[in-house]
Each structure stands twice: as structure tokens, then as C-alpha cells.
């Protein structure tokens, strides 16, 4: 990876590049902010402190010292902590360790809070928690300077002391959203455990219970593998992709390590005052905050956590403890928190929002009906979808049928044009006489296939059920017309699944057709006869899993599963068969925003696999079993959770993730027209 740096941002020519490679890939950040920080010109160091140290293991003797700085650039304030080069307290700490722990220009817009710890013995330290829920490991100020650090921050950004805990400083806390953050993020541990917030300690509350229930329901345990933090993969490969994955995992492991430390604090508190009354905190800190003591109390934990243990066993253990005995059993309590933090490692996508409603929708439109800020709209939909009543209008934009900057009048005109164009194409097959059809095998075959398939598409929905349902006929007409519009691609099974929700939403035949055409512009290669579009996507999934979950990748490799055919249905019809109808529509509109990536669906695949990976590996599933298992996940996947995971994975993977996906991979527009092949029709 990148070299360790100890100099200022301003004189480091490689800074921008390393930033791309490092923190930028794993931390949530707006590209705008990121680019400003990668231009070191004009950066001003407003605070600098030497001998600020982290303790990467339980032993304070193993430490990495560096320089903590606050850098002001324009109106933004950044925090950096760069370890000293070639100066280590312990030979076991490699150069890589130093790189991994390096904090590279974190903008304070992304910092949620800073918690100050002032133990009676030992050094003061702080824990910086990001708004994503990710926390950096404790930074120990060997030479003091915490107060100065906080004072400097206060000069440049809005910083307030938490009303609930005098040692917690909230950044950009304009409406005291701490509580909201804690509850809505469902990952309160990093923030609240770190801040010693009392609510976090009542572990019997809903978030954990929900975790448990969800785990049982979905037979995915929703965890990142234990091995990712206790195993600490440390491949020495120089492959940048591999390094990134280690980097990401290591960063996760930092959270876990952090969790262990804070856990022991909670435990101490729970022990003395039963679930953490704030008034007692000072007392507890004095007994716990010393690093040596903390580490002693948790030393055995990683070893006690079995790598391939039965998830259910752990869950039941967790449940058991949640009930009554959380505070009485050190080992199990630790286990709970490992479990919990495992989950945390994956769940730092933003909380899902309610769908976009009518009132909000009109705010995106100007007086003539143009969407002024399409990116903001797409972002909004990415995080919440749209209310059903708006879908008819909004999908046309998302699918690219209407241009965002078109006016009401332009769209009206466009619709009428397209309607007559549709009628013209439709007429091409409608005008085929029975006599002509006798001599037109290809037409007969296609029509036969479509006839057979439309009566097997979503017939359980009232919209399509019953005999002689006109909507089934519309499905057929649109598909047949499409097979004339794109005669080379023709008709292929799966298309009716893609069209069904579109017709359901749009209602109008011509509108549905053109929206379907737009969708097929992107997904058409899924249906190429040689399946190249599918193969490209399955290949991309394999590369992404390799990047984001090496143990799972290795497992698939060993078991000859790298073709990822078990994801076939997911990809071909965009999870249509995996979720209820309404959820599918929601998922699709999220995909169509192309907000974080055009290929979010591939990250969704990875997210689901990751959630199931312990089960897959634990049960040593072979290809057949896996295929069956994946099929049977249908109806049991929790959409919101998976979307958040996918978002997090997408951000984690960053550029390296994008590099896993070959150019022209659906739904990217084909790089040339060569991706369309004439299709041979099939007979069944």
C-alpha cells in the first residue's frame, strides 16, 4: 500500500493518491469534500501534537506513536494522525500496522463526537466516533493536550458538550440528534458505548432482540465472520485489491477491538452500579481506564470466540444473556458484544428513510416541471424509494424515458410521439395474417413462447389473475412488440418478470413499453444467447467477494463455486423472485437511481452472501446445496438491512470495487453495439 508519512499534508505530493487508496475508500465521504482535501494547497495546520499513541493490542507496551494534527483548509477542518516512520515500540508491529491505523484527513463534517477519557492513572485519551458509527481506536495523549485539542476544534466547528455526559463532545450537533442517531442508526454501540451513554447499556432493548429475531427468521446470522477480527488475515500480498480488503477488515477489527475495550468498561460499570449510572462514571474510569487493566480483563476473549461455531448457538447464548444474566457472566457478555460488533461492522449504511411523498416530490420540480437537482432527487430515492402513488411519474425519469430537465409540456408532447411510434411497431406483428404466420416460423415460435410465459407471470397478483385478464394480454402485446422493436434480442424468459412491475406501475401500454425499452437498454445483455451479460456480472460478483470477503471467496474457490451460478436468478431478474412485489419495486427504484453505483445490485449480492456466509461455511455447503440454499432464501431476505449493507460495502470497496466490474457490465450501457447478437429462437 502506501508509505507511512510523517510530514504535513501540504508538502506531500503523494497525498492525494494515498488518500484515494486509503481512508477515502473506507470512509463515508462526499466526493466534493474529498476532492477539496486532496488539494493540499492552502492547508493550514492549526493544531499539532506529538506522541499521540494508539495501542493496537491489549498490551500498552505495543503501541504506535504518531503526530495528531488538525488541518484547516478553506472552511473545512480535518483531523489527521500519522504514525512516525521507522520508530516502533515493538518489533511485532509492522509497517503495515502503522499504515492500517493511520488516520488520513478525516473531515469534521463526518465526525459525530469526541469522547474524552481522563483516568486517574495513566494517560488521557480520546475516542473519535464518525457519523457512520465507525470509531477510531483510542488515541492516548502521552504528552497531554486533550483540552487544547478540543478547544482548537471548537474554534473551527460547532462543538457542544453533551448534556448527558460531560466528557462527550458532539460535533455539528445542531438539534441534539444524539438520541435519534442512537436509536435510528441501530448501531448505537460505537457512539453510545464509547460515550458510556447509559441507554446503550440496557442491552435488553429492542435493537439486539431484533437482531436475534431477524437472525432466526432469515437463517442468515447477519454477521461478519468472527475470523475477520480474531483471525486477522495478514496476507503479505502486494496486490492492491487484496490490501484494500485487509485494510477494510482491519478497520472493522479496530471497531471490534474498541468494542472490547468499551465492553470492559461497561462491564465494570455494570458490576459496580448495575448498568451504568452516569454519576458513577468517574469512579469506574479510575479503575478501568488504565489500558493494562482493560486488556487483562478481556485478554482471553478473541481466543474464546470459536471461528466456525454454530451461529444459533451464539444467538441462543446471546438471548439467554439478554434475558437476565447479562451482567453476571464475563465471557458470555463479551461474546454478546462481539456478536453485536460483528454486526456493526456491516451495518453502517445510512438508516433507510421513508419513501419520497408527494409534498416533497413537488419541491424537486420547478414551475414548468423540470427537475432542477436530479442528483439530490436520486439520492433521496436511493435512501427511501418513492411512494407508490408517485411511481408512475418518477420511474419514467429514473428509467431515462423522460429527461430530468424536460418540462411538463415537453413530456406531454414526447408521450404522444412515442405513443404513435409504439402503435407503428405493434402494428408490424398485428398485421401478420394467419397465412403469413404459417410461413413465419420465428414469429410463431416467439409468440408461442410469450403466450406461454405471460400466463405464468405474477398470476397470484390480482392485477394479473383470473381468466382473460386484459393485463396479461397487455404483457403479451408489449413483449411481442418489443421482440419486433429489438428483433435481434427477441424474447427471452425473464423479460416478463421485468415487465410485470413496470406495467403494473405505468398502466398505460405505450408508456410501459417505452419504460421497458429503457430498462432493456441496460439489462438486455442479461438475455443474450451466449449469456455474456450474465457471465460478466457473475464474474464481477466473484471479484467483489474476493475483495470484500476473502474467507468466503476462498471457501467458494475450494468448493468449485466460483462460477456464482447460484446468483443467477438474483441478477437476471434483479431479485424479482426474492422479494415481495412491493419490495421489488422499491429495490428497483433504488437500483435505478445509480446513486452510489450503477452496479449496486452486485453489492446487494455480496451483502446477502456475506450475511449467510457463516451458515454457508459452517455447514460446508457444496455447490448443489448452496444453490438450493440460495433459492430458498427467497422471501426471507430483509431488504432494508441488505440495502444498508450493500451501501456500506459499496463505499468500502470504493474505486477498487468499481475496478472489479468490467466496463460495459450491465446495467452500464454497452460500450459498443457489439453486445447485441442475433438470437436464435427456442422451442420448448
Amino acid at each position, binding site marked *: 500500500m502506501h508509505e507511512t508519512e510523517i510530514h504535513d499534508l501540504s508538502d506531500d505530493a503523494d497525498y492525494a493518491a494515498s488518500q484515494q487508496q486509503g481512508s477515502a475508500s473506507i470512509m463515508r465521504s462526499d466526493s466534493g469534500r474529498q476532492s477539496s482535501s486532496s488539494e493540499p494547497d492552502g492547508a493550514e495546520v492549526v493544531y499539532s501534537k506529538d506522541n499521540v499513541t494508539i495501542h493496537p493490542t491489549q498490551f500498552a507496551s505495543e503501541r504506535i506513536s504518531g503526530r495528531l494534527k488538525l488541518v484547516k483548509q478553506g472552511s473545512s477542518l480535518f483531523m489527521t494522525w500519522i504514525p512516525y516512520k521507522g520508530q516502533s515500540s515493538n518489533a511485532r508491529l509492522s509497517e503495515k500496522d502503522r499504515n492500517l491505523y493511520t488516520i488520513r484527513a478525516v473531515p469534521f463534517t463526518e465526525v459525530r463526537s469526541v469522547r474524552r477519557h481522563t483516568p486517574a492513572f495513566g494517560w488521557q485519551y480520546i475516542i473519535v466516533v464518525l457519523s457512520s458509527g465507525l470509531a477510531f481506536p483510542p488515541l492516548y495523549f502521552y504528552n497531554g493536550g486533550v483540552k487544547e485539542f478540543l478547544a482548537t476544534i471548537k474554534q473551527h466547528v460547532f462543538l457542544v458538550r453533551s448534556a448527558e455526559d460531560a466528557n462527550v463532545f458532539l460535533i455539528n450537533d445542531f438539534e441534539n440528534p444524539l438520541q435519534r442517531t442512537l436509536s435510528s442508526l441501530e448501531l448505537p454501540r460505537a457512539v453510545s458505548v464509547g460515550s458510556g451513554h447509559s441507554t446503550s447499556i440496557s442491552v435488553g432493548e429492542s435493537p439486539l432482540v431484533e437482531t436475534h429475531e431477524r437472525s432466526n427468521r432469515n437463517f442468515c446470522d447477519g454477521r461478519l465472520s468472527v475470523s475477520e477480527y480474531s483471525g486477522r488475515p495478514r496476507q503479505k500480498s502486494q496486490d492492491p485489491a487484496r490490501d484494500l480488503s485487509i485494510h477494510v477488515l482491519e478497520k472493522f477489527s479496530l471497531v471490534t477491538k474498541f468494542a472490547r475495550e468499551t465492553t470492559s468498561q461497561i462491564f465494570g460499570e455494570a458490576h459496580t452500579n448495575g448498568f451504568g449510572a452516569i454519576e458513577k462514571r468517574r469512579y469506574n474510569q479510575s479503575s478501568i481506564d488504565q489500558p493494562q487493566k482493560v486488556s487483562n480483563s478481556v485478554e482471553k476473549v478473541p481466543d474464546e470466540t470459536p471461528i466456525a461455531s454454530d451461529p444459533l448457538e451464539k444467538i441462543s447464548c446471546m438471548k439467554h444473556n439478554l434475558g437476565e444474566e447479562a451482567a453476571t457472566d464475563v465471557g458470555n457478555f463479551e461474546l454478546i458484544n462481539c456478536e453485536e460488533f460483528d454486526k456493526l461492522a456491516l451495518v453502517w449504511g445510512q438508516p433507510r428513510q421513508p419513501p419520497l411523498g408527494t409534498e416533497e416530490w413537488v419541491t424537486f420540480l420547478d414551475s414548468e416541471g423540470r427537475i432542477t437537482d436530479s442528483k439530490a432527487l436520486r439520492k433521496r430515492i436511493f435512501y427511501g424509494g418513492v411512494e407508490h402513488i408517485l411511481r408512475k411519474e418518477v420511474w419514467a425519469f429514473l428509467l431515462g424515458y423522460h429527461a430530468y430537465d424536460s418540462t411538463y409540456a415537453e413530456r406531454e408532447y414526447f408521450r404522444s410521439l412515442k405513443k404513435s411510434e409504439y402503435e407503428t411497431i405493434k402494428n408490424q406483428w398485428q398485421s401478420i395474417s394467419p397465412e403469413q404466420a404459417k410461413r413465419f416460423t420465428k414469429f410463431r415460435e416467439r409468440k408461442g413462447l410469450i403466450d*406461454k410465459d405471460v400466463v*405464468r407471470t405474477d398470476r*397470484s397478483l390480482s392485477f394479473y389473475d383470473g381468466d382473460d385478464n386484459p393485463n396479461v394480454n397487455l404483457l403479451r402485446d408489449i413483449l411481442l412488440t418489443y421482440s419486433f422493436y429489438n428483433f435481434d434480442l427477441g424474447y427471452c424468459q425473464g423479460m416478463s418478470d421485468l415487465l410485470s412491475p413496470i406495467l403494473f406501475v405505468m398502466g398505460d401500454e405505450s408508456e410501459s413499453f417505452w419504460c421497458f425499452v429503457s430498462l432493456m437498454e441496460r439489462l438486455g445483455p442479461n438475455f443474450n*444467447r451466449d*449469456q455474456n451479460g450474465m457471465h460478466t456480472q457473475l464474474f464481477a460478483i466473484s471479484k467483489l467477494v474476493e475483495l470484500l470477503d476473502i474467507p468466503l471467496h476462498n471457501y467458494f474457490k475450494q468448493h468449485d463455486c466460483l462460477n456464482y*451460478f447460484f446468483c*443467477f436468478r438474483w441478477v437476471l*431478474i434483479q431479485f424479482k423472485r426474492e422479494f415481495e412485489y412491493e419490495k421489488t419495486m422499491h429495490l428497483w427504484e433504488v437500483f435505478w437511481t445509480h446513486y452510489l453505483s450503477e452496479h449496486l445490485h452486485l453489492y446487494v449480492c455480496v451483502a446477502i452472501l456475506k450475511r449467510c456466509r457463516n451458515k454457508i461455511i459452517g455447514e460446508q455447503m457444496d455447490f448443489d446445496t448452496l444453490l438450493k440454499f440460495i433459492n430458498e432464501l427467497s422471501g426471507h431476505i430483509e431488504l432494508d438491512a441488505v440495502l444498508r449493507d450493500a451501501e456500506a460495502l459499496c463505499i468500502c470497496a470504493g474505486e477498487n470495487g468499481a475496478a472489479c466490474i468490467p466496463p460495459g457490465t450491465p446495467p452500464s450501457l454497452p460500450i459498443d453495439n457489439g453486445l447485441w447478437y442475433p438470437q436464435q429462437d*427456442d*422451442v420448448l
Partner: protein
Amino acid sequence: MDLNLFFVAGVGKSCLLLQFTDKRFQPVHDLTIGVEFGARMITIDNKPIKLQIWDTAGQESFRSITRSYYRGAAGALLHSSSRRETFNHLASWLEDARQHANANMTIMLIGNKCDLAHRRAVSTEEGEQFAKEHGLIFMEASAKTAQNVEEAFIKTAGTIYKKIQDGVFDVSNESYGIKVGYGGIPGPSGGRDGTSSQAGGCCS
């Protein structure tokens, strides 16, 4: 013991499978995307056998994907309607299966009994003839009335079972689509315990 069977190509497989696994007829069934599964325990020779049936997508476009599933199959079921086009398609599928599946795979051709006699383009005799030429077992069955459905699956499984006992398959090699479970390998000397098999099926 587990036996993997394969169902390949065409409309009606899913209905036939559902009749076998759930004993019900559901005329409306979403078309198969990729591959779906059905499983049922049967008994042959007093031995419990889990039949695992893989129901594959019909359209030939998917063949490059579906053929990868053949590899773990001990048997295949071809479901063919009496439509001429479907029937003609059988040879092409067979060729593919023979190429990508193991050579000892047992293949049964199931003709669709449901088709009304006057609408049949392919006669029972023609089906029998085709099966004979290609070394297939032949039977006509109806998903609607359940006639012969049970028999077709069990006969296929029975044929595989006999091959196992004759030592045709190396049952320790799971790529034959046979997984021997709890207790003993039913080899030539006679197995003690359950066998399950996967079968795939084809063509309506």
C-alpha cells in the same frame, strides 16, 4: 442416500414436479428462472431414498448456465409435450446432456399424457421409438390427473438404484449425483441404508 435427478426444458415440468412432491396440481406456476428444486423421500427395496429433483429453466438461452447443473445428476427426466417442435428439440437436449453429464446417467422421457388424443402431433409409439433409439426409459404421465407421475419418478430412481447395486457408479464420488448418507454404501454387495438421488427432467 440422496439421488439427484434433472428436469430439463419446456412447460409443464414444474407442474409435474409439484404433483410428485406435493401431490397437487397447480395449473398456474410462475415460469422457472434458473433452477428450482423439489425433493421427496421414497422407498426402494426398503431403503429410504431422498430424491432431489432439479427443475431447470426451459429456454435454450439458459443452457450455458443450466448445463453446469447436469454434472451432479444421477438421472434426468425429459418432459415432452406431444407438440412436434418440442419433440424435435429432444435430440438436441440429449446431446447436450450426454456431453455434460456423466455417461451412466439414467434418462427417462416422460410424455405428456394430458394432451388430448386428437391434438397430439406426436404419438405414443413415436415417443417409445425415440426412447428406444436413444436408450431412454419411456413413460407417459399427467400432472393434472397424477397418472403415472409417481411411477415415472420411482422407476427412474429404481433404475439408478439398480445401477448402484451393480457397481456401475462409484458412490463415493459425489459427482455422480449420489450421496450416501447415514450408514453404508449400497454397493454390489447390497447397501444397508438410504440412498438419495438427484434427477433432472426435461421437455414438455
